């Protein structure tokens, strides 16, 4: 009797396994005939060819940076669902349609493919570094675009391609021009800076005062571009995939940085460093040059469409005499008005 029951169970299990996956069957779009004229091919951040049939009318994103790009391109209306971490962002609350804010498709690492299939979007945006996710979506016939923006160059290129995919080439071009212009302006103002004029900078990462960026990270390039010198320049590598390293406390004391920057999303705050008696003899602490890297709406220290504001802010902070008539609040307002249609101050943004 028991054996019989077991075999029935077994047969049932096999049958269940053999059923096709739930959700929408993975068929390629059949409407090519109707829209073949407007079908285009763009390159994504992984240099893959992404074929887009007709106008993109719905977007699902599992990556905050990709969301930023879509919003900057003026296509926020098309967003249907976002990733869990982005749901907490005040910036997205102010820019993304209400009904998309509450709908999640997972995180940058894990995507709920059934949920995506059920929404049936015209385009899915995922982090390009998550190759597995890109491949598994592609296999199911879902149009997927891998977003890569680890450097300003990659950011610009991805913006242009994404702009093309969404039929917003003009905004994308405007954005890239603004970006290039700002960086050129910063470079011009800092031209001829001598090594002795470049302050030693220590950047505090997300895991407390002793976490920092190695020379493999964008933040390292950012400090160099803005006329500073990263004290952790000799360090390499990315620990455990998230890109930040920890240093011994005495190493920080030995480096004796002249400026300390604290990223917006760090657990540590500038006051924690200023009040920590272990660091009281560091030059930056003595001179009170410990700064919070803006802004409260979005971090400006990592590559995303707003990173360009971070470039200008840092350069002006490290070299105020080269940026005498620059007001960052006004700069941010201009940028926000131009690309988001609302001012930075109006959204509650603070430096």
């Amino acid at each position, binding site marked *: 009797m028991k054996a019989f029951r077991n075999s029935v169970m077994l047969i049932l299990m096999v049958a269940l396994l053999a059923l096709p996956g739930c959700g929408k069957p993975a068929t390629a779009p059949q409407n090519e005939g109707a829209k073949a004229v407007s079908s285009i091919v763009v390159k994504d951040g992984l240099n893959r060819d992404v074929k887009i049939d007709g106008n993109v009318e719905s977007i699902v994103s599992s990556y905050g940076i990709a969301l930023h790009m879509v919003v900057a391109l003026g296509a926020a209306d098309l967003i249907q669902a976002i990733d869990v971490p982005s749901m907490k962002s005040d910036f997205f609350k102010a820019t993304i349609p209400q009904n998309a804010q509450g709908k999640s498709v997972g995180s940058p690492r894990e995507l709920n493919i059934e949920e995506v299939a059920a929404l049936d979007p015209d385009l899915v945006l995922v982090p390009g570094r998550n190759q597995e996710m890109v491949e598994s979506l592609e296999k199911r016939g879902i149009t997927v675009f891998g977003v890569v923006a680890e450097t300003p160059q990659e950011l610009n290129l991805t913006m242009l391609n994404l702009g093309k995919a969404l039929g917003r080439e003009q905004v994308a071009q405007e954005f890239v021009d603004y970006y290039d212009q700002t960086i050129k302006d910063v470079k011009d103002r800092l031209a001829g800076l001598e090594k002795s004029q470049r302050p030693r900078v220590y950047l505090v990462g997300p895991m*407390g005062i002793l976490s920092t960026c190695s020379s493999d990270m964008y933040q390292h390039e950012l400090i160099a571009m803005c006329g500073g010198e990263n004290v952790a320049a000799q360090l390499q590598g990315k*620990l455990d995939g998230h890109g930040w390293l920890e240093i*011994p406390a005495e190493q920080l004391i030995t480096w004796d940085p002249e400026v300390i920057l604290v990223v917006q*999303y760090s657990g540590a705050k500038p006051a924690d460093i200023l009040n920590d008696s272990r660091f009281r003899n560091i030059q930056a602490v003595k001179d009170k040059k410990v700064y919070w890297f803006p802004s409260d709406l979005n971090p400006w220290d990592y590559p995303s469409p707003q990173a360009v504001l971070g470039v200008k802010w840092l350069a002006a902070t490290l070299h105020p005499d080269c940026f005498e008539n620059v007001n960052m609040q006004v700069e941010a307002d201009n940028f926000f008005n131009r690309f988001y249609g609302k001012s930075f101050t109006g959204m509650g943004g603070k430096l």
Partner: protein
Amino acid sequence: MKAQRLVLLGLIVLAATALFTMLVGRYSADLSTVLQIFKLHLYHIAIPEDLVSADIVIWSVRLPRLLMAAMVGAALSASGAVLQGIFRNPLVSPDILGVSSGASFGAGLAILLIGTSTLAVSFFAFVGGLAAVTLAYQIGRRGQNTITTLVLAGVIISALFSAALSFLKYVADPYEQLPAIVFWTMGGFNNIDWADLGRAFPLVAGGLLLLYLFRWRLNLLALGEEEAMGLGVNVKRALPLFVLLATLVVAASISACGTIGWVGLVVPHMARIMIGPDHKHMLPFSMIVGAVFMLLMDTLARTITGAEIPISIMTSLVGAPFLGYLLLREQDKEWNG
């Protein structure tokens, strides 16, 4: 007699190791500077201007760090020795009843709900560790064969809290909270200051002292429940007492410095191979070996590169081959000797 001499030798080695680790680091300070700074603090003399940086590094960074490392090394090893004894199983580590996964979950919860402040995270971790073991103990002691069901309950509770932690990681903010959780679970002594040491010291030192005083009962418990009862040990009372103390010292340690793998498993074996299985000597010797081992591993972690290497990497990378070597040598002795 021989065992007592070994314990004494161990203490001398510990003192020498502590002095050596005071002298090495990314900030270079020689012996005379270190001694001078100790003297200044001993006599409460104000630190002269040119010694301020050295004083901060030696007195405020290195000293609390190495005291904490030695203490945690001793606590993990003692806890491992005690639990291996009462479970009569050489594969037992302090994690057997879920203290690590409970503490990690507690820390993760604090990071998500309150933020990355040290105080909140270590309090939640401590409570989480104790809660996990209490749960495991409550489930496990109901069985007929207490030891087996306890192990099983530990497995269940560990799995439960690990899954809960994975869930926290899933919903965590990937830029701020997730790195903080990952970093915490890797453990280390980098951010230890006097305040951390002050919080952990009473619990860990008190627990270790009690374990030391009751160590002779361990030999009886290690004979098995029935024999221990036959010899007049109240197993019903002795077992929870040892579980409680072994958990307390580990939970207090983990809450200060995160989870550190492998020490609590490997050091008791090292100690047992060197000094024999009698807990009267083996338990204090485990504490000493654990302290020396942790001091050396922590020194490697903070000096090999400019970055801090997670200490669990060092403890596993060095501890595993060393235990293998001891085992091989021991077998040679037994077979050829």
